Structure formats: structure tokens, C-alpha cells
């Protein structure tokens, strides 16, 4: 069976890509600052001993957000306006735009651009670099989303990761397998006084096809208001909370032995929580699940998101994601399951 990377565009590229080495990848790429933050979170927790609780500020009117973006993006006439759940759903000629109930979240996709992505496929090695994606993303935000992605004092927009959409196929008569990268994605987050917002809140995700056209974006970008402070627990206690929450979610007893905080020297991950269950990443900051969450809340408390993999002897994996609160005395939140699990005896 042949296995090659194949562009769907020009013959020259086809010929070149046919010689690509099998196994060439266009894998997701967490940027160095993201990895550094994950390393710091699991070894140190937070830089501060206390942080304020935040509240997502009052709602922005959905229709107004939709109108502003439609004008800015030059989308023309709205052909249909409806409600999908709490979201405002607007569609026009080959585009759709959804605005969340509080107006802070928008999901936009351009189906005309998406339809071109396949024909512009490139060999996997031809993916956009993270640096190029960051530059394109910042330029788009500045040009088209500046009225929505507003940074307050001591706030920063930071690039977090680059991801890639790849395609493949096999001709069953020849056995030939082809691969291509067809879209490139950059994820931005936000820091407040140097502390990142973790979770799906305060994110801007932009997708570009290979000719540089924007295919889609999704953002959640609220204004935050600071309230009372919470004193924060240390890294070891954060890991204990993750261990307790994961045990509850797996419906197993909490281990009697506590998790060892890894050394700051060398690679910290994976961190064993229980036998066969490892923490892959921990990111501490203000935890905001976003306006796209199934259970929305205005409350944004200090917390740490986790990514955990359980793997048995046959190789079967189970992935668990979520977040634990990091305040010594956190507030219970009906929209945040871990805050309920952790107060159980």
C-alpha cells in the first residue's frame, strides 16, 4: 500500500508531495509560553497568594453585536434571523453567525471559504507556522474585531496554541493514500495583571485556509469586574483536589496517598494521580467556562483546568477534562461541578 502526502492543488506540488515521507505530521502545537505556564502551574500553582473573584459584566445586546459584526465583516444582508436555544442565529449568503445570550460570545463561519479549503490543500509540511498564524490572527482582530476584543488596563492578548485540520483518503482501486493540511487555527487567550484566564472563557479562535482567507472564528470575550479576594492554596493542595474530583468522576475511592508535586527541574508531566491515571496538563488562573457553556455562570473564581488520561493494560484510554477551584474558601457554584464535589465529606 502506498502512503504519501498529497496536495490537491497544483501538479508541481502533487509531484513534490508524492515524495513526502510517510508519517509527516501537522500536529497541534502548544506554544512555549503555554507549556511554561503548564509547568509552572503544576510545580508552583500561582505566583500570587490571593486573587480577586471576578464577575462577568452585564450583558451586551445580542442584536447589536450581530449588527456591528455584519457591518465590519461586510457580510451584507441577513437572510434569516432566529433563536437557537438562547443564542441569536443569523445567516446570510454563505455565512452564519451565532451570538450567545450575554452577547460576549460569537461563532462565525463562512461556508464559501470553507468550500475552497479542500482544493487549496497542501502537503502536511506546508502548514502555516505558529508565528505566521499569530501575526495573521492579531491583524484580523485589529481590523475586524477591535470593537469586541477590547483589552482593559493590564490585560494582554496572548497566543496559546496552533492547530491544524488535515484530510486524507484512499483510492481503493490503487491503494494510494493521500494526505493534506487544509486549514490552520490559532487560539488566543487573555491575561489580567499577568494571570491567565483558563477554561473556554476569554478565548479567540481563528481559522484560516491555506490562501490566508478567514474561514471561521469563535470568541468569548466578556468584561470582568473584580470583587472580593480569595486566598489561594498551594500546588500540592491543588493536585489533591484534582485527585479527589477525578476519583469522584471515575466513581472510585480517593487514594490514601497524596500526589507528589513534581520538581521544577525537567519535564513535570505526566503526574500520576492514581495507578494508570495521569495528569497531562494543569493550567491555573481565573477559571471561566465561557458563555458557550451548558451551565453558564457570572462567577469567575481562581481555579486550575486539568487534563487527565486513564489507560488500562489493554491500552484503552479515557480522557477527563475540567477544573478545580483554587481558593482556600471558594464559592460553591451550581454551574461548576467540582465546587460541589469538593465540599462533600
Amino acid at each position, binding site marked *: 500500500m502506498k502512503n504519501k502526502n498529497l496536495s490537491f492543488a497544483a501538479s508541481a506540488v502533487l509531484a513534490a508531495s508524492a515524495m513526502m515521507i510517510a508519517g509527516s505530521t501537522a*500536529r497541534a502545537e502548544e506554544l512555549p509560553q503555554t507549556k511554561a505556564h503548564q509547568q509552572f502551574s503544576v510545580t508552583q500553582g500561582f505566583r500570587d497568594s490571593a486573587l480577586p473573584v471576578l464577575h462577568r459584566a452585564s450583558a451586551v445586546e445580542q442584536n447589536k453585536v450581530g449588527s456591528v459584526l455584519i457591518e465590519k465583516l461586510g457580510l451584507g444582508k441577513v437572510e434569516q434571523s432566529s433563536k437557537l436555544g438562547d443564542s441569536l442565529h443569523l445567516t446570510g449568503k454563505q455565512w452564519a453567525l451565532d451570538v450567545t445570550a450575554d452577547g460576549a460570545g460569537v461563532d462565525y463561519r463562512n461556508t464559501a471559504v470553507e468550500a475552497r479549503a479542500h482544493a487549496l490543500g497542501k502537503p502536511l509540511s506546508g502548514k502555516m507556522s505558529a508565528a505566521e498564524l499569530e501575526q495573521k490572527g492579531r491583524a484580523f482582530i485589529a481590523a475586524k474585531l477591535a470593537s469586541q476584543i477590547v483589552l482593559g488596563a493590564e490585560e494582554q492578548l496572548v497566543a496559546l496554541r496552533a492547530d491544524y485540520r488535515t*484530510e486524507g483518503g484512499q483510492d481503493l482501486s490503487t491503494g494510494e493514500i493521500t494526505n493534506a493540511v*487544509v486549514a490552520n487555527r490559532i487560539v488566543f487567550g487573555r491575561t489580567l495583571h499577568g494571570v491567565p484566564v483558563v477554561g473556554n472563557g476569554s478565548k479567540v479562535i481563528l481559522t484560516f485556509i491555506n490562501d490566508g482567507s478567514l474561514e471561521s472564528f469563535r470568541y468569548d470575550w466578556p468584561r470582568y469586574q473584580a470583587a472580593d479576594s480569595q486566598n489561594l492554596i498551594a500546588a500540592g493542595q491543588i493536585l489533591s483536589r484534582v485527585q479527589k474530583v477525578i476519583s469522584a468522576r471515575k466513581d*472510585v475511592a480517593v487514594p490514601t496517598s497524596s500526589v507528589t508535586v513534581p520538581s521544577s527541574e525537567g519535564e513535570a508531566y505526566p503526574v500520576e494521580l492514581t495507578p494508570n491515571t495521569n495528569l497531562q496538563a494543569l493550567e491555573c488562573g481565573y477559571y471561566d467556562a465561557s458563555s458557550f457553556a451548558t451551565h453558564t455562570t457570572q462567577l469567575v473564581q481562581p481555579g486550575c483546568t486539568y487534563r487527565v488520561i486513564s489507560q488500562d493494560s489493554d491500552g484503552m484510554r*479515557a*480522557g477527563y477534562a475540567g477544573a478545580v477551584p483554587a481558593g482556600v474558601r471558594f464559592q460553591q457554584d451550581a454551574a461548576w461541578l467540582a465546587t460541589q464535589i469538593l465540599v462533600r465529606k
Partner: protein
Amino acid sequence: MKGRFLSYLSGAARNALIVVAGFTMFTIFASPASATIHFGVRCEGSFQDNWAPTIDVYDGCDNYISVIQTAYPVDFYFNLQGAQPAFEYGNADETCNGCGGVDSVDFFFMSTHGDSNIAQVNNAVYAMWDYQTWASAYQMRLGDSGKQVKAFATFSCDTLYNADGKFWHRWSSALSGGVKFLAGAHGNLYTDEDDQAMPAFAQYVVAGDALGSGWLNGVYYANTDNQPTIANTGSNANNCWTRQGVNLSGLMSESPLRDSQIGYYCWTNWN
């Protein structure tokens, strides 16, 4: 038309094939279009004698149903106790709507553990509740009988793994039945305390977006570490890519491709 929603119980109550959670809802759907597209849902979060890790999938499945139900009937919502025959081609359960058969609806959705190489066997498999029991893609021929399922979407890890060149080995039997759309993952999918993936996908389906981009975006946006995949067949490469852009309406109208009509298969991954 029936709209029966069955939830789950825990512990000893799991010994029946189908567990009724104490309420059954019958819903009348007024939309003419809804009468033609039937959904079925099966989800399993805990497993007999803990043979597989407990995963919290029910909120996601509940929320998926809540969104789909705004536009289309959901014929059943069952767990996966004793469910293996419901996936086996030729078994009476496979086309039995009251049994939760995969070929008894147009659009089948499931969440449970999945794998593509369990115990070093290259097979796409889905964990049943029953002790060390899997539904195997080798035993499936999706879309060839009964209601002829058109879409098979599974929030499960790894079953659409495609980096090793053995995708067709795993899926040729199932895809040869004519099913038009597979959604799943080529790697990890994370269950979350607050699942956003499954209802997000449902929202794209109901909105009339392409099913493939709806799955890829809904699952990715819920967790950027998720590794979603879609796959389908075509008579040739162009036909395969064209069919991959189908929405729900197009899914219902396009012709199934079976056996020698299939000349190409194609997939798309995020991450």
C-alpha cells in the same frame, strides 16, 4: 411517532437491557420535515464490575437530545446493557427500534469508550456495559437494512484512527452497508464536567450546517485538545469530498454507496 427518553440508573438496577429512568415523554412534533428524520441515542458511563473506567457522558447525551428534540424526534435513549446485538449485521436487534438498533433510525448517536487497537487487534470497537464486551466494526454493516442508518456519530476515543493506513481494514465492513457519515475521533476525546461538545454538535445539525464541520468544530471548541474526525465514502475522490460537505437535509437525499459502488474513502481530522 414516538419520542421516548430513557435515562440511566446505577448499581443493581442496571441488569435490564433497557433501564427506564422513571419518566417517559411522548412528544408531538409539528414540523413536516421532522417526520422524515429519526434519531436514536445510546450512552454508557459506567461498566459492569468496573471493567472500564466510569466516564461522565450522560449530561452531554441529555443535552444533545435536548437540542435535537427542538426539531426532530428522538426515538430512543438507551444505555448499552446487553447492547452488542443491536450493532451486529443480521441480528434482529439491529433493525429493532425498541431494542435501540443502529439500523432502526436515520441518525444514530452514541457515547462510550472506544478504541482502534485494543489488545493489539486493529478493529474499531465500542465498549458495552457488559463485562469486557465490545461492539465491533467488523460485525457491522451500517445502512443496509431496516431504516438504513445514514449517520453514525460517536463521542468515543480513537475509533476513527487513520494514521496507520488501516482505516479501511477496520471500517470496510461497516461502511460497505451504505452509511453516509461517520463522526468520532482519531485520538482522545475528553469528557468534561460541563460537556459543551455534544449539544454544540446538535446545534450545528439543527441549524443546517454541514454535519462534518459541525462535528469537527463543536468537539474542538469544547476542548482544544480533543481530536475529532469525520469520515465517509465516495465513488471516487471528488465524489467523496463532495459528500463530506453534506448537511442533514443532503444526508437524507443523497444515495447510499454500497460495496463495489465505493471507490474511495476520505477523512478529516482536527489536531
